[in-house]
């Protein structure tokens, strides 16, 4: 029974905080992008426009929800909900501090990977059920991109597992706190694996900056073309939530999670997450898009073998006695 | 020691085996040059393994066995298969792999003009043959030997029929196959008899002399087939339809010697079987003489060599019959080398002249000096010229036969030694030293791939004789050469034969008048005619009778049953809808019925 209580007591605040951070992140992104583009960004709603995301949500809630006549109705309605749910679900196993973790599973890494593999399904569902060609092309791109990038993601997630000798996220952080952050040492499997993991976990869910399935200059709005109102909002939100949580997971796996001097763990964790989060937007607002096939080639030709090599390198490192 | 004998033997066995399998399966690979490279590499690695094995066996070691049980029947293996490594198998392995390597290298040049797929096929067969031969050589018991024996027969069939578009080649292949298969029945029955008498397929099982006689006699039937002993020798000359390197490898050096090897391997049995050995001595001597006479008048260079092979195999059998294990095997070895050399030399000549016929050749000594030199070495070795390999082994045989006193068999063997020298002399003169003909005038020396194996083989053809001691060691018997009366006599006969041929054929292509009637008789192939007659008189009427019974009695019954099946089949075939789910349904129904039955019971 204590499990139920624990889930409730930690789950609710975590979800709330994640949502809030996401909203703040949205605001931050708009400000940040505006700065990059020599604009000011939102200024009207609240101080420095900080309540703009809230205004957006209210707007979306009010909008009329349309379901195209020729769509597959059930799947069409279901897709955004599942998408949002899966995006939040990953947060369950992330240790935000030594104690703040909703469910400290001993196969946490596997759970993260599995949920990531699932995100593809609602995305595809949304695209396919719209019965819209742009959405369908977006869905096919989403499938291809997710499946491709899930391979290097899984493999690079193996690196910390091997180094720490455990699949529990908490254990991995604890190990890093006792030794060193994996992104720093052993640098050779660590740092590239970090970059690989982070990028491919974004790419896998077709998230920024790998949002080719939604590339609006080509596909209008990709899979969300037919979505209106809050259902579109859910897709949109899920994207940001996912980005936040992917940042959190990456900082747990490679950047020592809550480990850091002077400040309590939670602060460090939030700081690292936000830094990664900001770096994504930095990339996003300054780079052009790859073509989908170029991304795919990049993944299969280089990232997959590279991640395999990293895994073997990590195993060798452990075997020769590094990190005890 | 680089590696354990077992792993060496495994290498020797598996390298060509793997290549054969790979080439058999991977058609794209087979259709390219890679087939040749792979095959030759496999043969060479086998050779290296064999050399190392022999080196290891030179110090006295107990036989190494690696066996796995086969065909378990209630926990008891029906037989075992595996490897047996001792002096005999190691030395035989060396001979086989050495000749095979030489022949494969030779084939690279010889088969050069064939299309790549055809070459690939050829080399695949070669690898297969080497595998089969190694299975045979390394066999720990008669059953596996039989396995290898049959496989070798199959590859022989494939290689004889290599030019399958040529009717004569196809016919020859079938003939060889059936004759040897017929003989192999003996081996099979012998095997079963052995098993029933001793409960195993091992040749060193305890057995009564009587049973040994029976078994060995049956085995010897197979040997007669494989080693082309009279009267089952008829397939060997026809087998010359295959490519010449094939003749060199299979039908001169290794496969036909498998029969001899069987006797050597089964010596514990044959040693007990005195009557069989007496039969062997007689038959071997007769074959030696008969084949030698037939070789006299052949105009096809390969047929001369083929009959000569028959004759030499007769020698070996006679030696074994006389009880000289070492003699038989020693001659097998030397013969393998010089006969392979001769065949390859003949191949080189045929390659240059584009004809098999002796009458088209002549004057090649100038044009093909290397071929000539090596060929002459081989021929003189075969003729038993003192100092060359053939002399020592032949001497050992004659000594062994003559050990029990002067006998008819010794005379036959001596005469055939004389004849051997005579026809080889004729061959040499006709091919190399006679005036050039139209065809041979355009001939020129062959390329490196053809000459390299000739050179390689010429060395043992020259020198194997001096390694008798080594072979003795491998066989666990002492060997000391001493020149006895018989040896001098044989050598003298050899020289005489050469001289006579020089006198008779120096200036003329035709046979001298003196020999003409004999020549006519033999040219028409008395044995073939005998077989043909037998075939017409006996087999055909019998076949007709069987055919009648078949057509009117059996067929009638069969047709009736067939009709019944067709009718019912047309009804039943509705079940076969071709729809997978229907089959699943039927399966489930069946399973359920079975379950029900189980529950009810």
């Amino acid at each position, binding site marked *: 029974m204590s499990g139920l209580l624990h889930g409730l007591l930690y789950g609710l605040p975590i979800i709330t905080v994640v949502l809030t951070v996401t909203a703040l992140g949205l605001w931050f992104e708009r400000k940040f992008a505006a700065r990059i583009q020599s604009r000011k960004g939102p200024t009207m709603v609240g101080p420095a426009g900080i309540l703009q995301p809230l205004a957006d949500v209210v707007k979306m809630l009010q909008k009329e929800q349309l379901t195209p006549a020729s769509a597959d109705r059930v799947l069409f309605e279901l897709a955004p909900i599942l998408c949002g749910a899966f995006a939040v679900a990953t947060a369950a196993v992330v240790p935000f501090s030594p104690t703040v973790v909703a469910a400290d599973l001993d196969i946490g890494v596997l759970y993260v990977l599995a949920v990531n593999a699932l995100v593809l399904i609602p995305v595809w569902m949304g695209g396919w059920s719209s019965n819209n060609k742009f959405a369908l092309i977006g869905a096919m791109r989403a499938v291809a991109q997710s499946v491709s990038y899930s391979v290097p993601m899984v493999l690079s997630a193996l690196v910390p597992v091997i180094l720490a000798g455990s699949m529990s996220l908490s254990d991995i952080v604890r190990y890093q706190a006792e030794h060193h952050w994996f992104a720093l040492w052993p640098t050779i499997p660590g740092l590239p694996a970090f970059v690989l993991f982070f990028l491919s976990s974004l790419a896998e869910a077709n998230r920024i900056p790998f949002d080719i399935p939604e590339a609006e200059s080509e596909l209008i709005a990709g899979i969300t073309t037919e979505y209106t109102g809050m259902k579109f909002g859910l897709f949109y939100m899920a994207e940001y939530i996912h980005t936040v949580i992917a940042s959190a997971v990456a900082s747990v796996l490679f950047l020592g999670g809550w480990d850091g001097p002077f400040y309590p763990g939670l602060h460090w964790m939030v700081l690292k997450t936000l830094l990664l989060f900001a770096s994504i937007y930095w990339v996003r607002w300054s780079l052009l898009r790859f073509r989908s096939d170029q991304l795919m080639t990049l993944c299969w030709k280089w990232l997959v073998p590279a991640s395999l090599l990293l895994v073997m390198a990590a195993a060798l490192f452990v075997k020769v006695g590094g990190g005890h | 020691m680089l590696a354990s004998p077992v792993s060496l033997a495994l290498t020797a066995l598996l390298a060509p085996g793997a290549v054969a399998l790979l080439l058999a399966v991977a058609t794209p690979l087979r259709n390219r040059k890679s087939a040749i490279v792979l095959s030759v590499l496999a043969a060479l690695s086998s050779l290296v393994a064999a050399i190392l094995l022999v080196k290891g066996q030179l110090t006295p070691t107990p036989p190494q066995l690696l066996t796995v049980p086969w065909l378990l029947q209630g926990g008891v293996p029906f037989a075992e298969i595996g490897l047996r490594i001792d002096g005999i198998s190691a030395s035989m392995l060396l001979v086989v792999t050495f000749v095979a390597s030489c022949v494969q290298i030779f084939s690279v040049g010889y088969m050069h003009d064939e299309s790549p797929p055809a070459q690939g096929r050829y080399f695949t067969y070669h690898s297969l043959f080497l595998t089969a031969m190694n299975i045979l050589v390394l066999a720990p018991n008669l059953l596996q030997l039989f396995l290898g024996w049959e496989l070798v027969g199959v590859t022989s069939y494939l290689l004889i029929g290599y030019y399958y578009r040529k009717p004569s080649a196809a016919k020859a292949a079938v003939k060889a196959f059936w004759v040897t298969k017929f003989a192999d029945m003996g081996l099979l029955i012998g095997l079963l008899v052995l098993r029933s008498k001793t409960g195993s397929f091992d040749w060193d099982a305890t057995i009564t002399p009587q049973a040994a006689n029976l078994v060995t006699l049956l085995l010897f039937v197979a040997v007669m087939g494989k080693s082309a002993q009279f009267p089952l020798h008829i397939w060997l000359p026809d087998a010359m339809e295959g490519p010449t390197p094939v003749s060199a490898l299979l039908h001169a050096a290794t496969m036909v010697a498998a029969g001899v090897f069987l006797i050597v391997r089964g010596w514990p049995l044959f040693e007990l079987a005195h009557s069989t050995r007496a039969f062997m001595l007689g038959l071997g001597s007769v074959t030696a003489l008969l084949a030698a006479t037939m070789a006299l008048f052949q105009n096809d260079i390969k047929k001369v060599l083929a009959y000569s092979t028959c004759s030499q195999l007769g020698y070996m059998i006679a030696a074994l019959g006389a009880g000289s294990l070492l003699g038989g095997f020693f001659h097998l070895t030397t013969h393998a080398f010089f006969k392979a050399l001769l065949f390859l030399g003949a191949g080189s000549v045929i390659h240059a002249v584009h004809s098999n016929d002796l009458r088209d050749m002549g004057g090649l000594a100038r044009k093909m000096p290397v071929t000539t030199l090596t060929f002459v070495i081989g021929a003189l070795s075969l003729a038993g010229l003192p100092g060359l390999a053939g002399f020592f082994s032949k001497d050992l045989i004659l000594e062994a036969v003559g050990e029990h006193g002067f006998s008819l068999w010794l005379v036959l063997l001596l005469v055939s030694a004389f004849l051997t020298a005579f026809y080889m002399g004729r061959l040499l003169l006709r091919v190399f030293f006679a005036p050039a003909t139209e065809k041979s005038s355009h001939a020129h020396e062959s390329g490196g791939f053809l000459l390299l194996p000739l050179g390689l083989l010429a060395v043992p053809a020259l020198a194997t004789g001096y390694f008798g001691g080594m072979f003795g060691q491998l066989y666990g018997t002492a060997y000391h050469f001493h020149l006895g009366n018989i040896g001098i006599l044989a050598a003298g006969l050899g020289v005489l034969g050469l001289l006579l041929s020089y006198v008779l054929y120096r200036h003329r292509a035709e046979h001298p008048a003196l020999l003409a009637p004999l020549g006519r008789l033999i040219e028409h192939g008395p044995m073939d005619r005998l077989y043909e007659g037998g075939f017409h008189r006996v087999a055909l009427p019998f076949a007709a009778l069987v055919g009648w019974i078949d057509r009117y009695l059996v067929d009638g019954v069969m047709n009736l049953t067939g009709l019944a099946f067709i009718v019912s089949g047309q009804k039943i075939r509705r079940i*076969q*809808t*071709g*729809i*997978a*789910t229907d089959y*699943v*349904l039927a399966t*489930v129904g069946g399973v359920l019925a079975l379950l029900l039955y189980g529950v009810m019971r």
Partner: protein
Amino acid sequence: MTLGLCLILSAALFCIGLYGLLTHRHAIGLLLSLELMANATNINLIAFSRFRGDSMGQVFALFSIALTVTEVVVGLAIVILLHRAYRDARVGRASEFRH
């Protein structure tokens, strides 16, 4: 939750899969039903592993999952080939096999 209950659940799943296998016409439907049946067997493996306190069942289930995945891969490739040949993925059309 007892072993018996797990086995009954697995049996039910298996029979549903069998029903699907017998009734579906579309090749994809057949594959789906096969998946159900494979899943049923995996449940069995895990259940036995749980109630006997033995890791073997899990290892086997792991292998079984991997094998099922390859089965689906090949199965779908065949479906696609069938489709390529007949422009139709209904197994009934493939009854031309029998000719």
